[in-house]
């Protein structure tokens, strides 16, 4: 796979979820993403090319960033199938491709959700919040920091990983599962979460300094209540609605 082709696939993978729907989820985006590669691999084999295109219109769903790895692997396996002589051997390779694609998509969805949504996103939010609250008295700087730091921190890791994973998927081929066992994903997730935790604590310290002293106790009590109620599976939006109701009730009772 040339760098130019990798670039085309990467650019198209940014639209993986553009046709997301409940029936086949990311299949439309995947078919669009793979189109240049399938055209190259199956050139001059019209019937087989059509079958190759059709198999990527089937149900597909994974974490959108980790999809790069699946795209790379599928490219390698399509190339292998296209190079095999038509017949039983090719059918066998296509069946293996289908099975590996489904298995990889499911497995990578779990890792990707934990890494990008569960660790990187809170870390970036903590970074943006801590800086913005520390710069609260200088609003233009606070806004610039909040937007700039979040975008820089997230995309520096996410875009680099998406680009590299596409190549890795292509190189690892059907050995993807074995290679992933050696990938320190859990350690990375744990490190990012711990860093995120420290940044959220820094944001809390900055908030304590930013608000008037008489509001601090109420704020800390609200934070403790949020921690307890989240543990009881109460959603964040319901916590906010409860705060509004408590305020209304307290005002009605003459306590506020």
């Amino acid at each position: 796979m040339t760098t130019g082709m990798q670039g085309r696939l990467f650019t198209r993978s940014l639209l993986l979820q553009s046709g997301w729907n409940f029936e086949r989820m990311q299949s439309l985006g995947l078919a669009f993403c793979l189109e240049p590669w399938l055209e190259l691999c199956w050139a001059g084999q019209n019937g087989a090319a059509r079958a190759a295109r059709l198999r990527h219109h089937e149900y597909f769903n994974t974490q959108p960033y980790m999809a790069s790895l699946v795209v790379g692997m599928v490219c390698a396996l399509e190339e292998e199938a296209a190079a095999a002589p038509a017949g039983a051997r090719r059918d066998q390779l296509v069946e293996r491709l289908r099975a590996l694609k489904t298995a990889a998509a499911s497995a990578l969805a779990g890792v990707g959700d934990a890494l990008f949504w569960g660790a990187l996103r809170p870390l970036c939010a903590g970074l943006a919040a801590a800086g913005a609250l520390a710069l609260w008295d200088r609003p233009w700087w606070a806004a610039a920091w909040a937007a700039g730091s979040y975008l820089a921190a997230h995309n520096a890791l996410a875009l680099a990983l998406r680009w590299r994973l596409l190549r890795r998927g292509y190189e690892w081929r059907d050995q993807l599962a074995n290679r992933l066992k050696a990938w320190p994903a859990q350690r990375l997730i744990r490190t990012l979460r711990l860093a995120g935790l420290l940044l959220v604590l820094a944001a809390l310290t900055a908030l304590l300094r930013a608000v008037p002293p008489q509001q601090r106790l109420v704020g800390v009590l609200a934070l403790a209540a949020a921690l307890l109620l989240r543990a009881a599976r109460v959603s964040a939006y319901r916590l906010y609605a409860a705060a509004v109701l408590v305020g209304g009730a307290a005002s009605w009772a003459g306590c506020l």
Partner: protein
Amino acid sequence: MSALSGWLAPVAGAALVSLLELDAVQVGQFMLSRPIVLGSLLGLLFGAPQVGVALGLCCELLSLDDMPVGDRLPLNATVAVAAALLLTRSPRPLPPAVALPAGLAAGWAHQRIETALRYRRQALCGTAERLVQDGGMPSWRRLLGQALAEQAAATFALLLACVCVAGPVLSGFWWRVPHGALAGLDLGWRLAPWLGLGVALYALRVRA
């Protein structure tokens, strides 16, 4: 943007947000649509950076633990922060304490609209598949363009309704509501960052 007067600024803001909202799921996911990013950027554009950061921070932290896993579609925090900010910057501005719940309601409404759009998009799969079966090639520009255009148009229409209908109605109404309700909204606004930080700590604590 701050130089634009009257209704033009919020309408132009709604148009900009309807494009940036595509980043949330459909295009790229560069995080331009995250509430703290979008809130801050809109705040800078509208000359109200502190309100932008405050609304962005609240929506970001409250939505942090609401993950788009599988076919789960969370409340649209992008639309929530954009609607709230546009309501505070319209010709009949609302205070942030009132704009935040109105924005969250808009985010919830967008979630419903997007669910319908996702069902609607199923037809595109069948269209593309039929074209391939017949030996042709799907017109990706038309298929994906249609999906993106529908999403952007729905977001724009919702934000326009918020700014041009809900905003004036609420601005004529909110100061007439009982004092207790206003006090509740004010407390909710003041406590939202604390609640959000509690949500963030919980999300990171249980998995660290």
